[in-house]
């Protein structure tokens, strides 16, 4: 149960250094042709690594890499043409920098609006951007794309060697940046966005900012690659750099190699370059046809890409090596310490005259309520009464039409979700929304890395939260393999890892059998013992009766009753609207504490 870094990272680092060393001396032994192939691989790898930062990590697939590539290439070419710099090395450096800057500027300008699009719509919008630039580059005379820009040679040395090093440097920079991103907060944040953007935001990931940063970094690297490409060819036209083909090639590299991994894009680029220039190099008209056939064959032979193949082996090993762990392996000693944090009268959450309408329908109508610090409160009410809307308002998914929301001493209505998370408000959804692609540990780690401001060790936080949710033994399992009941616990653990002061739990007991319900209630009690205030929406009246200090009843958007559970359960208005018949207390054993 260690951080995923450590030994594997060291091993990867050593292997990487060895590969780099080998590559650095390659020009001494390899033929110029081999160097040209290597250049193509490195260029493709740099592109695919850069693409992967947004596409693989964050799941935002750009079909428009050619936009940044072309812009970088043209900026660099025009730069060297119009700004006379005598020293060739300096000229190259300045032009490359300008190419990268131009591409990242474009990304910064279009990033905010275009990253609001999701899925295929983002992909298509990026394709659109690249096509616009392509047309403009040939149509507008300032770009000279129609006739092309020639670039003077920058080196007296053998160009294949020189540009091999340029592309090597580029690929290494790209890979280092990608690796740094992958194992940083940014990387975890981007992966969380890929897995489930809404949940990520709820856990405190500043999704807008992270996506934009990822986009700009990606564009910068692609722009640099484009500029180097231009210098290597010595002649840039619209058709040679703004090809949609290039955009799709990049996606193919990443898909073939393995999406979202660090080495995948490199492998994908290597395979395609070797196929295209070495294996099929001698074939005439049918080489493209063969490429198509091989791509399809690879889909069938390596369904999850090359890296998937390797990972698959590793997973089989671990599954065989470690038997499915038994749950209930948590002893009292593992329980996190419960700081004495008595219930106080201070209001953690206060709603004042809160209202929200949807097209004239009053979903929430003038609700006032207060949650005492350290209490467990429950909100009940018929389906469609407004419970979810209320939770959405408190967690910042919706803005109220009128009224105020106060959290501790701050007014929070209208603040973005991730800010609320960092202030200490967490939420557990009714339908568990784990990050399916991540392990149980990583799921909770995302919560620990973001969440409330503070400086506790994320690893320790994660382990504590897992212990509380009795998931420690399953930490290495992929979240997708957990049964529903465990997922609910995982959600709770992930929410706790954000170190919340207030947890909103949406029907935590729905779909659980009596035993599981009792376990869940125990956990919620444990959460309260850490000093966290809990706000439940729950249909299971037994659970509500046993746990809650206060019950609020909403119907048709209005608060119709509140008070201790027993009083509320006998309130005729509540029975009328919600219970149907008086609630039988005979079956309820004495409340837990």
């Amino acid at each position, binding site marked *: 149960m260690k951080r995923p870094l450590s030994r594997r990272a060291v091993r990867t680092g050593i292997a990487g250094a060895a590969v780099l060393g080998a590559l650095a001396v390659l020009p001494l032994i390899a033929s110029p042709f081999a160097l040209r192939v290597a250049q193509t691989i490195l260029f493709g790898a740099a592109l695919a690594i850069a693409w992967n930062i947004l596409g693989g990590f964050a799941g935002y697939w750009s079909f428009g890499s050619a936009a940044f590539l072309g812009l970088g290439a043209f900026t660099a070419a025009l730069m060297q043409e119009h700004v006379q710099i005598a020293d060739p090395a300096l000229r190259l450096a300045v032009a490359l920098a300008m190419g990268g800057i131009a591409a990242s500027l474009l990304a910064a300008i279009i990033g905010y*609006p*275009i990253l*609001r*699009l*999701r*899925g*295929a*719509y983002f*992909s*298509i*919008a990026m*394709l*659109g*951007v690249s*096509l*616009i630039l392509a*047309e*403009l580059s*040939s*149509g507008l005379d300032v770009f000279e794309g129609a006739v092309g820009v020639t670039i003077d040679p920058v080196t007296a040395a053998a160009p294949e060697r020189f540009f091999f090093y340029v592309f090597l440097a580029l690929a290494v920079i790209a890979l280092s940046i990608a690796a740094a991103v992958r194992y940083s907060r940014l990387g975890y944040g981007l992966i969380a966005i890929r897995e489930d953007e809404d949940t990520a935001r709820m856990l405190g990931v500043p999704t807008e900012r992270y996506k934009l940063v990822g986009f700009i970094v990606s564009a910068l690297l692609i722009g640099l690659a484009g500029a180097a490409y231009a210098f290597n060819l010595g002649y840039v036209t619209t058709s040679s750099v703004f090809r*949609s*083909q290039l955009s*799709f090639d990049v*996606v*193919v590299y990443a*898909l*073939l190699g393995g*999406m979202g991994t660090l080495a995948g894009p490199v492998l994908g680029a290597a395979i395609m370059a070797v196929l295209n220039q070495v294996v099929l190099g001698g074939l005439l*008209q*049918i080489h*493209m*046809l063969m*490429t*198509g*056939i*091989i*791509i*399809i064959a*690879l*889909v*069938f032979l390596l*369904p*999850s890409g090359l890296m998937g193949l390797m990972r698959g082996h590793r997973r089989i090993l671990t599954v065989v090596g470690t038997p499915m762990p038994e749950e209930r392996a948590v002893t009292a000693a593992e329980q996190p310490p419960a700081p004495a944090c008595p219930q106080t009268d201070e209001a953690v959450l206060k709603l004042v005259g809160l209202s929200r309408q949807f097209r004239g329908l009053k979903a929430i109508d003038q609700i006032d309520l207060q949650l005492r610090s350290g209490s467990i409160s429950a909100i009940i009410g018929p389906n469609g009464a407004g419970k979810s809307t209320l939770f959405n308002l408190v967690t910042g998914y919706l803005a109220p039409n009128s009224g105020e929301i106060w959290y501790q001493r701050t007014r929070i209505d209208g603040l973005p979700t991730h800010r609320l998370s960092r202030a200490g408000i967490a939420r557990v959804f009714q339908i568990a929304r784990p990050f399916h692609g991540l392990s149980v540990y990583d799921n909770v780690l995302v919560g620990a890395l973001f969440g409330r401001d503070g400086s506790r060790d994320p690893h320790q936080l994660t382990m504590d939260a897992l212990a509380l949710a009795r998931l420690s033994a399953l930490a290495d399992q992929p979240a997708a393999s957990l049964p529903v009941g465990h997922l609910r616990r995982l959600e709770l653990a992930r929410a706790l890892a954000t170190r919340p002061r207030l947890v909103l739990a949406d029907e935590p007991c729905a779909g659980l059998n009596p035993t599981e319900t009792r376990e869940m209630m125990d956990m919620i009690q444990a959460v309260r013992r850490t000093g966290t205030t809990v706000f439940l929406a729950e249909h299971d009246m037994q659970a509500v009766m046993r746990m809650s200090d206060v019950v609020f009843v909403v119907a048709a958007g209005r608060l119709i009753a509140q008070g201790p559970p027993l009083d509320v359960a006998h309130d005729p208005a509540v029975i009328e609207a919600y219970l149907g018949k008086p609630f039988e207390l005979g079956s309820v054993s004495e409340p837990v504490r």
Partner: protein
Amino acid sequence: MLDRLFQALVDGVLQGSVLSLAAVGFSLIFGVLGVINLSHGVLIILGAYLALVALRTIGLDPLLALPLIAAICFGVGYLYQRFLISPAIRRASLLSSLLVTYGVALILQNLFTLVFSADNQSVRPDYANSFDRFGGITVNRLQLIAFAISCVLIAILAWVLRRLPIGRSIRATAEHELAARLCGVDTDQIYAISFGLSAAFAGAAGVLIGMLFPFAPSSQEDWTIFGFVVVVLGGAGSAAGALLGGLLLGIISALTGAFVGPAYPNAVAFLVLVLMLLLRPHGLLGSAFHGSR
């Protein structure tokens, strides 16, 4: 000036209707299967080449050959989904369909080059060159015919989807595959039929395109991209959306060509595309039957 405006509008509508027909299948596949079919353009070009073969070998008029070609393309699309795309999705993932369709586009484009040569071709019967003048506006008769055929075919598709049980089950499968299966719908069959329909419409559009535009194996890429644009403009998965998107694209292109400059129709169209995405991400007509993918 006014004449130029009207002429541009008429040209735009006539061209646009064909673009709609060309894109409606792309939209159907995206809406129902969630697959971005990068081989859509190559299916269109297939239709054009089939029309060429029909004309050159047995002298069959392209318009008469159109139903036959659509039927052949239906079969091709059906088998293509059944034996290539569906197994790939089952084996790998939905995303792998992107690679598969990309590969198929490469294969077919180069196969066409081997079989038909890379030369530009066109299928132009005599009536392709007759025209009528209404006031200051000139209308080519073939374009008028193509407009009518496109509108009728799209209307038929809309009717099938709306009214017939097969259409209802296509929409149901698009919305929720598992739920449709539990209702007794053979969704594998529905997917293959949807793909077949898409290919049939692509083939039919290809016949008209072969008559209106010069084409070569490499034209396929452009037609796939037009599919993207039309679908985004109109909204995925609905026949009406595709019609609207195509008309809009046609009109934008024509107006730009007439008033901004002939170099910019595509640039402006793509710009509108991006703006449209930002303002109405699901296209003008929302998504009439595609699920929450």
